[in-house]
């Protein structure tokens, strides 16, 4: 998996643009998208008006009002800044992508129906329509997304995937899709344009990383409602406090009431909410996964079941030799030697794995056999046997019945140990290969589909996260069960057809489960569309890429695991910062309430737990803390909080301890420090 170089968190260029952006985002029509910040902006404007009025009338406490107004504006600006930084990181990537979408000249074929007529006319890529057929030759950039209808070519797709090794694209089959902006390195292809101008894969990717199409995701919406509700509740508490204070003989100024309101409403999470969402998408893109919507990323965090293809994901996909079993009277070493000789010229993965096993575990050296003195018996589908004749020796390996025929034995005449070994191998889902030489049967090679070494641990991790893994394979149930046990998956579907996959997804969804899967073929498309999270491989067909809601540019099926973690991290960051934000309010009450009423009721000074210097400095310090905490938490919002694959309870305990308890304690310390600074500097 390639991870795109991460743009530095505080890259100078991005920062400069973000500062500009945070001012531009003060426009009311932009601010209103974020209710908490909109309220903060409105009350900041109110305090500013009070400040101007007081300046004209020469009222007392001008410095205090001015400072409160300034810090309220900073609160809004800091929140805008967080969003702008998050967007800026995406923009930098979008700009890089946009450069590849230059106005490529396309070779539009005039007579696409005639395969021999390659007459073309130049046309701008931006003017191509769906259904046009273009010729792309070595050195040309593919002008638009499309399907190869004729030809084969090697294509450099680094513009999209970041991977510079060329890939082969050809007409027909599962590798016929090409992406606009990629470069043909050799040969030529005829491409039928499948995307309308402006809606190509590259266009969509640019829009996504820029956040231009960003809509609030379902969970973000639910959280915004919670935050808006909290804001309303605090609005009620603060407005009515004016009346209650009046009864107690305290006239509260608009400025201090607003200061109380802004410190209470959840500005911390409100200010960082959209930055968290943008950063989540960005994190996914750094893992080389493009999500069609933020909704899909969130759904990934909720996934209950991962549907994984066996081949290439759980196993290496090739049967490899894992053991040699000898007939009575011989040793495994003898089998290894014979198998090695028989496989010397076998260039299949199986053959190479036999050589590797014999040289590795049985320490056999290189064998030098002169080609003139030997003859290679190649494998054929008819004989199902291969081997080597040299020095009068004949070594053979192959299917059990074929080798038995070679040594002129029936199955029942073969040694019992041999039969047992063959049966044991078949029972565990492996493939037995018999080995024989001129003297008779030597033994059996155990070939099996080898499970990737670290995959079992990853599945255990997933199980701890509460995610079930289901292996999908075309193997028979015996083989499937053996591999399922070895890999530690929770369930498997053997002899699976694409219809089985679809049916399985539907039945799991009916039980209330959320399913994620990945696929690349056209026949995967229905299942990809049905799954809650469908990850299509970049190497896959156009149909698969259209059906899924994410595309993995590295075409790595195991990446589903990372995608799930990113989804979880996104929600956790939101939840933890919400908890932090609300826990902060306790300290702010203890700062502001005694400050408001200490003139009327000096005894309320007992609530001034932090021992803040003066009422003005207490209020100002709370407002300053409230603004600065947003800036302090920007890195956390952008990077996300650490996710660990442990159970829900352990995770919650940890996050509550850090963000709940921390959110409770930090402001007590922070406000005190700011108060010391404010009173030392004589600001209030």
């Amino acid at each position, binding site marked *: 998996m390639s991870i795109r170089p991460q743009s530095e968190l505080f890259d100078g260029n991005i920062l400069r643009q973000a500062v500009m952006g945070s001012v531009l985002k003060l426009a009311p029509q932009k601010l209103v998208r974020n209710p908490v910040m909109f309220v903060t902006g409105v009350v900041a404007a109110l305090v500013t008006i009070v400040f101007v009025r007081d300046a004209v009338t020469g009222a007392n406490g001008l410095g205090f009002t001015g400072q409160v107004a300034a810090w309220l504006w900073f609160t809004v600006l800091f929140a805008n800044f967080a969003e702008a930084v998050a967007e800026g990181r995406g923009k930098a990537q979008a700009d890089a992508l946009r450069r590849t979408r230059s106005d490529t000249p396309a070779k539009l074929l005039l007579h696409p129906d005639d395969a021999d007529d390659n007459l073309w006319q130049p046309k701008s890529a931006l003017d191509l329509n769906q259904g046009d057929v273009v010729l792309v030759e070595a050195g040309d950039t593919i002008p638009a997304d499309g399907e190869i209808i004729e030809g084969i070519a090697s294509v450099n797709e680094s513009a999209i995937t970041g991977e510079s090794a060329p890939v082969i694209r050809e007409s027909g089959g599962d590798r016929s899709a090409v992406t606009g902006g990629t470069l043909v390195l050799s040969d030529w292809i005829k491409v039928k344009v499948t995307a309308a101008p402006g809606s190509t894969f590259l266009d969509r990717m640019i829009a996504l990383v820029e956040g231009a199409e960003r809509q609030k995701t*379902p*969970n973000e*919406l*639910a*959280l915004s409602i*919670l935050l*808006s*509700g909290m804001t309303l*509740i*605090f609005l*009620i*508490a603060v*407005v*009515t*406090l004016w*009346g*209650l204070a*009046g*009864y*107690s003989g305290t006239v509260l100024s608009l400025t201090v009431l607003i200061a*109380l309101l802004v410190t209470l409403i959840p500005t911390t999470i409100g200010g960082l909410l959209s930055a968290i969402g943008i950063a989540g998408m960005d994190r996914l893109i750094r893992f080389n996964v493009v999500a069609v919507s933020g909704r899909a990323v969130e759904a990934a*965090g909720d996934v*209950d079941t991962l549907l994984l293809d066996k081949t290439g994901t759980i196993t290496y996909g090739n049967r490899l030799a894992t053991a040699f079993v000898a007939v009575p009277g011989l040793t495994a070493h003898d089998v290894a030697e014979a198998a090695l000789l028989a496989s010397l010229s076998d260039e299949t993965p199986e053959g190479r794995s036999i050589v590797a096993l014999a040289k590795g575990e049985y320490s056999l050296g290189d064998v030098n056999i002169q080609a003139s003195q030997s003859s290679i018996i190649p494998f054929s589908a008819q004989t199902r046997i291969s081997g080597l004749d040299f020095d009068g020796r004949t070594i053979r390996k192959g299917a059990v019945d074929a080798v038995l025929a070679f040594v002129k034995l029936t199955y029942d005449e073969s040694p019992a140990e041999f039969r047992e070994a063959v049966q044991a191998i078949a029972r565990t889902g492996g493939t037995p290969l018999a080995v024989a030489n001129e003297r008779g049967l030597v033994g059996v090679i155990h070939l099996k589909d080898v499970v990737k070494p670290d995959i079992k641990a990853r599945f255990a991790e997933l*199980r*701890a*996260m*509460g995610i079930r893994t289901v292996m999908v394979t075309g193997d028979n149930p015996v083989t499937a069960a053996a591999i399922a046990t070895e890999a530690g998956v929770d369930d498997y579907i053997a002899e699976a057809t694409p219809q089985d996959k679809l049916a399985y997804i539907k039945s799991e969804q*009916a*039980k*209330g*489960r*959320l399913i994620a899967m990945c696929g690349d073929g056209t026949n995967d498309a229905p299942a990809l569309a049905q799954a809650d999270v469908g990850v299509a491989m970049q190497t896959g067909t156009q149909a698969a890429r259209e059906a899924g809601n994410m595309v993995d540019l590295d075409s790595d099926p195991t990446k589903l695991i990372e995608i799930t973690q990113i*989804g*979880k991290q996104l*929600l*956790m960051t*939101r*939840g933890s910062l*919400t*908890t932090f934000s*609300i*826990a902060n*309010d*306790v300290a702010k*009450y203890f700062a502001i*309430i005694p400050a408001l*009423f200490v003139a009327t*009721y000096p*005894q*309320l000074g007992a*609530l001034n737990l932090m021992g803040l210097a003066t009422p003005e400095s207490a209020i100002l310090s709370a407002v300053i803390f409230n603004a600065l905490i947003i800036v302090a938490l920007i890195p956390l919002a952008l990077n996300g909080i650490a996710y660990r694959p442990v*159970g*829900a*309870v352990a*995770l*919650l*305990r940890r996050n*509550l301890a850090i*963000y*709940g308890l921390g959110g409770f304690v930090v402001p007590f310390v922070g406000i005190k420090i700011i108060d010391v600074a404010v009173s030392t500097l004589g600001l209030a």
Partner: protein
Amino acid sequence: MTFVGWLQIALVLSAVVATAWPLGIYMSRVFQGQRTVLSPVMMPVERLLYAAAGVQPAKEQSWIAYTLAMLALNGAGFVLLYTLLRSQGWLPLNPQGFGAVSPDLAFNTAISFVTNTNWQAYGGETTMSHLVQMVGLTVQNFLSAATGIALAIAVTRGITRSAVGTVGNFWVDMTRATLYVLLPLSIVVAILFAATGVPQTLAGSVDAVNLDGSKQAIAIGPVASQEAIKQIGTNGGGFFNTNSAHPFENPNTWSNILSIWSMLLVSTALTFTFGRMAGDARQGYALLSVMAVLLIAGVAVVYGAETSGNPLLASAGVDAAGGNMEGKEVRFGQALSALYVVATTGLSCGAVNTMHNSLMPLGGLVPLFMIQLGEILPGGVGSGLYGMIVMAVLTVFVAGLMVGRTPEYLGKRIEAREMKLAMLALLILPLAILGFSAASVMMPKALESLANAGPRGLTEILYAYSSAAGNNGSAFAGLSANTPWYNATLGMAMLLGRFAYIIPVMALAGSLAAKTKSPASAGTFPTDGGMFIGLLIGVILILGGLQYFPALALGPIVEHFLMQAGRTF
């Protein structure tokens, strides 16, 4: 505080849990239409009632139809009670010959009894005829309690069912709540009350000859029967003005224990019903644990504050050994008075055996805060459970995010729509309590009703609106609330607290009912363990604290500090 005092408290609470457990299981059977011990007796009655009313018991309603039926019944109940109050002078069973009740008081009283608040801006024995007490008030005591139970069952169904459009049949739930739960319990409890010495008669008063030879008419009446449903249905409206402090409503320790037990019984039992219906008893235990922890903490503060007494009196030479006994009945003692104060406000009962206005500042803070926390500890019959469910939904939302999943409660995903409805419900109480309180303190006319100046006066007003909006009905006293302003605004607060709250909650139940239940996994945050209990307690306290801290700081909190500094008003 004494060991014996705590032992008394522990014994009463244990008795509540021990009896609520089988009652809860019984109720889960009743509301799921299963056979119970009372079925042979009640089934024919039930069938007769359905046939007479044209109700098809097997036909379930959507949340909207259910809520509309509930509103229609309660609306009719309001009209009937209002008419009865306005015309009692012409009606029989009025031995003392009371005239019509004034329009604003009749409005306030009718709403008060329909909403299960039982705020009484009047003195019962000097205002209401026996007919009104029995046909008007006591009937509403049953109906409002049954409404609460029905709503709680409907909300429970919404959460525990999977992918259905209905939440039950309101008429069936009402009928069963009355026939199978409230009526039998009331009969038993009324007999027990009578056994402790509470009068049960249709006579208006008995005459007593005083030592100086003058004659005194002592009011009596059908007290035991009204007392039973008053406590069982967490209504709290007393027969007499001084409520459960009156020697005929609550003559001795046994009747006091019976009062506390019977008011806590049904609300506690409903948590067991909830667990049963959810198919996981532990879910109910978790909610009950939260209620119990906060209730006992409240008792500890009141008990502690009251027994430590008033330092100003101690310095004035008054013996402080007994603690603050002002406004308390010696026959109940400190421990059970403290338990009564906290239980009646943790529930939305509102019966009182102690003058809340005579509590110490911190002792008075507790009942006020218990009400402001939303009447969920354990809350009124039914309303306590659905109020607690709203808090649980809010808690799992934040907790669910922190474990990296779309939050779920009992397998139901909590999404934008659910949050919107939960927040709407949550806004009602602060709006009514703080809004009307602030409006009142700004009106000189409204301030004339106050008996105390300074922070205590503010507490009296805050308490009145909290009690009304929380459908509690207890009075802090000290506020002469029988004025057009208070009758009207407290009436509105009661309406908001009951019906404006339940509509979004029922919508929430309907929305959850339609969702498919998703199976739990290791990644799901469990809502039956200590972690959830702790978190739910935290959310309730922090949310309540954040809403009311400024107001409380100007009331009981500052009064506490002022008292310590020796300042009085």
